């Protein structure tokens, strides 16, 4: 059983998805999905433990030997990502039933859970697999279910957002497919490990350059790197709240994982960062993303939009971390993956609670909410402080590491810019805090109650995690650091 964990990680949610259809009753389906997700979470914990103690796990799917068959390869990086995804997914699911009762018509509830589990399967698959083509397949599994999930939003703009995402996402995925094809053409293998050994021999050919560019652009479309981010704000804003939470916390993370995997493992550090000007490119785009997206966030009226733009900005920080191409920088990136997942899921879940009570998410409807929904708004505030990077929250930890990485690199100007960027976060977070605590409710607005327990429990679990991992960084830092070192170890 233990030896089959890598594949079970993906199989469990995959199998659970069609089984949902048999259960019919929404409540049951919810509990079943929660069970499946918890199981996946448990598996990911076991996997992480196993990887941390005994190193890389290689699993041959169907018993076919590695370069020919599909290999699932779990190293510290994958295990870390799997943990993040399954943990967030499980916590988010707790609130799911309550939330979708208000936002999705009853007959579609089962459908929602099926799509959710499929999307989870896709993400877990992308992360677990060690096969480049398999990545594409899982990418499409998660994306197709994502388009459908977003279209479940009950605003008609959700449809339009979903359509736009579909077009952009498909172009991105197809780009990745082309890149993989070109790589296969040059090396005759699809196994990532194999690729990383064979690519250096043909590295100086134009085909490999092209392959690299296609893959990188495709992945960047998926992770909403500025200026390829246009699909993201509306998709996040009009999707059902639960979907927003789930994707904001995990989907971009998976894309970033792909980026790291391709640049560091498959193509190798020296190719990605010395042969090609990836460093300058990432640095510029990352910084531009931070400033453009944060400034855009300041002017939004829809609170989900504010945090959607903030997500794009946070991707900027992550990319800047990658662009340092040092162990320290990558550690900061991985930490921020984890930390950002924690804070964004907490914030968006709290916003989901607001939607549940208010039915709207405009900033103007937040007036006076600090009194009416004190626990929810406190969560938004703490999450926001974490986003800014105030000490004692997780946001500070990753920002600190990023700062040290930049200083280590001697990039003083970038360090200052990063800090200035987080000041923009202060502005947009404070607009919400001010509205909630220091403005009188709009005339004629109904008084609302605090969010139901099924919301508050997951929200505060995440918030406490935000603070806990801001204080006790041993676990997250250790895993991130050794994952980063692992990436530098394997690359030539």
């Amino acid at each position, binding site marked *: 059983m233990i030896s089959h964990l890598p594949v079970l990680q993906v199989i469990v949610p995959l199998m659970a998805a069609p089984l949902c259809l048999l259960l019919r009753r929404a409540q049951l389906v919810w509990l079943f999905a929660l069970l499946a997700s918890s199981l996946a979470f448990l598996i990911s914990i076991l996997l992480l433990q196993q990887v941390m103690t005994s190193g890389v796990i290689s699993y041959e799917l169907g018993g076919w030997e590695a370069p020919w068959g599909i290999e699932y390869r779990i190293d510290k990086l994958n295990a870390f990502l799997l943990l993040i995804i399954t943990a967030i997914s499980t916590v988010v699911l707790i609130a799911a039933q309550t939330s979708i009762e208000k936002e999705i018509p009853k007959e579609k509830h089962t459908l929602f859970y099926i799509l959710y589990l499929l999307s989870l399967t896709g993400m877990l698959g992308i992360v677990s697999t060690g096969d480049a083509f398999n990545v594409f397949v899982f990418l499409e599994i998660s994306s197709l279910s994502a388009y459908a999930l977003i279209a479940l939003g009950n605003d008609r703009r959700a449809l339009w957002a979903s359509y736009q995402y579909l077009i952009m996402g498909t172009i991105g995925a197809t780009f990745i497919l082309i890149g993989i094809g070109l790589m296969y053409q040059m090396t005759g293998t699809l196994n990532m490990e194999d690729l990383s050994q064979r690519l250096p021999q043909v590295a100086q050919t134009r085909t490999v350059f092209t392959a690299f560019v296609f893959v990188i652009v495709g992945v960047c479309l998926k992770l909403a790197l500025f200026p390829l981010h246009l699909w993201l704000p509306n998709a996040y804003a009009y999707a059902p709240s639960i979907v927003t939470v789930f994707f904001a916390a995990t989907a971009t993370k998976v894309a970033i994982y792909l980026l790291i995997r391709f640049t560091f493992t498959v193509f190798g550090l020296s190719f990605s960062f010395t042969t090609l000007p990836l460093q300058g490119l990432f640095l510029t785009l990352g910084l531009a993303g931070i400033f453009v997206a944060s400034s855009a966030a300041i002017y939004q009226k829809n609170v989900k939009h504010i945090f959607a733009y903030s997500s794009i900005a946070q991707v900027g920080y992550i990319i800047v971390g990658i662009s340092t191409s040092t162990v320290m920088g990558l550690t900061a990136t991985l930490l921020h993956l984890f930390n950002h997942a924690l804070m964004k899921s907490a914030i968006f879940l709290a916003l989901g609670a607001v939607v549940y009570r208010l039915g709207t998410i405009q900033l103007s409807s937040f007036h006076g909410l600090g009194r009416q929904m004190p626990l929810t708004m406190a969560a938004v505030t703490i999450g926001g402080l974490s986003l*800014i990077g105030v000490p004692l929250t997780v946001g500070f*930890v990753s920002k600190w590491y990023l700062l*040290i990485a930049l200083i280590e690199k001697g990039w003083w100007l970038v360090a200052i810019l990063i800090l200035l960027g987080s000041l923009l976060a202060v502005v947009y977070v404070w607009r919400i805090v001010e509205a909630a605590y*220091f403005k009188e409710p709009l005339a004629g607005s109904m008084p609302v109650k605090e969010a139901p327990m099924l919301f508050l429990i997951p929200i505060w679990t995440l918030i406490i995690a935000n603070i806990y991992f801001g204080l*006790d960084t041993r676990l997250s830092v250790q895993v991130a650091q050794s994952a980063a070192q692992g990436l530098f170890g394997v690359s030539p």
Partner: protein
Amino acid sequence: MIFSLEVMLQLTIAIPLLAILGIIFARKNPNIREGITITASIVLLYIVINLYQSLLSGKTVNVFWWEIMPNLSISFSIEPLGMIFALIASFLWLITTIYAIGYMRSHQEENQTRFYSFFALAICAVMGIAFSDNLFTLFVFYEVLTLSTYPLVTHAGTDKAKQGGRVYLGILLSTSIAFFLLAIASTWFITGTLDFKQGGIFSANIDKTIAGALLVLFIFGIGKAAIMPFHRWLPAAMVAPTPVSALLHAVAVVKAGVFTILKVCVFIFGLDLLAILPTTQFLLYLAGASVLLASLVAMRQDNLKARLAYSTISQLGYITIGALLATSSGVIGSSMHIATHAFGKITLFFCAGAILVAAHKSNISEMRGLGRQMPFTMMAFFIASLCIIGLPPTAGTWSKWFLLMGTLEAEQWTLMMVLILSSLLNIAYLLPIPFLAFFPNISAKNNQGAENATTNIQIKEAPLASLIAIGIAALACLILFIYPNPLYELATAILDTERVTYGK
């Protein structure tokens, strides 16, 4: 004492937090709520005094909480400079609470529970700052202080208050994140530690340019010290209720700023290094300019609180200068000035609040002849003014004396002139207020004021609780003149004097 010293040290931080719980718990009953606040402040003061005695007897107390990242821990210890700060803050918390009860009630402010809770949180942060054992701990509590005082600044909830709150938070957070954090991270990167150490933590062969740049980052980053051009938050924060302005902007927040600067100068850079850095001179002149300009601006303010605010900026400049002079007298003067200015300024703010509550006046031009109506308040105002100016028989004399000595030791003649000039300006903008209050006819050209004065002769002072607070604070200004020894001893103990090489 039943507790060990370590426990007591942690209690200084825990007691305000416990008080918050009590305050929230008793929110329905104002008497109990304020009883809890006062009890907490008395207990806190008692504990701090106990710690003070243990410090005098030469014991060292260290408390380690936890390590957040490798070599970055939250830990506390007691040293003389922090002791001065903690003593003042805990003593003045008590007085301010007494004052606030009178003020808030007679002013019928809303949200008093929120007010007392965040007030206690701010004190908790101040204790954390005062006893922090390393720069990281200090930074954490520094940010807590910023955030916890924001609701106090915007207490009134009006648009003006929110505007003020935005400026306040904006400047303090941006400087601390953009400069202070960068400076801390760089220091950590260069030295591998952030512990406060006598003589500094930089090795002797550090690149002077980098260290100089770091010093600039530190001085600008510690926005709470209100060195121009990052001083705008102080006047903006004056929209807060008077007790808040008094405690936070005469004591806690601004003093946390200059205290941090002193800490950084003495324990991170060390005076020897500080004296030879290329940027020190520039920063000294900047602080000097801040002193003079703020005094000049203060002269032009008609709103009493605004005038006091600019006066604070100017006095903070003194302390920064004292720290940057890198001489023992400078440091002694600075640390004493933290105390003496705190007493003087808090009295002035109390008086301003009392005038607002009793006579509903906030502009200086309206205060002519007020001395007959509020003689007690105005006397206190007079004493406190002397203290700020630095004239006997008040405590301010000593700190200014040492600051001047510091400039002499460092042979900074320009700065000496700046300090003297600014003291003259202090006289010009502070003393006329009590004089005109008592002798409205002194300038004959305005007869209207005199008539006003004669018609309003019955005495109408602020509430008793506020008066007691004013009395204690003013008395403290006088007592510290006659009996400055404890303060002086603490201040001299900051530096291991033998180790200091004077000047360059």
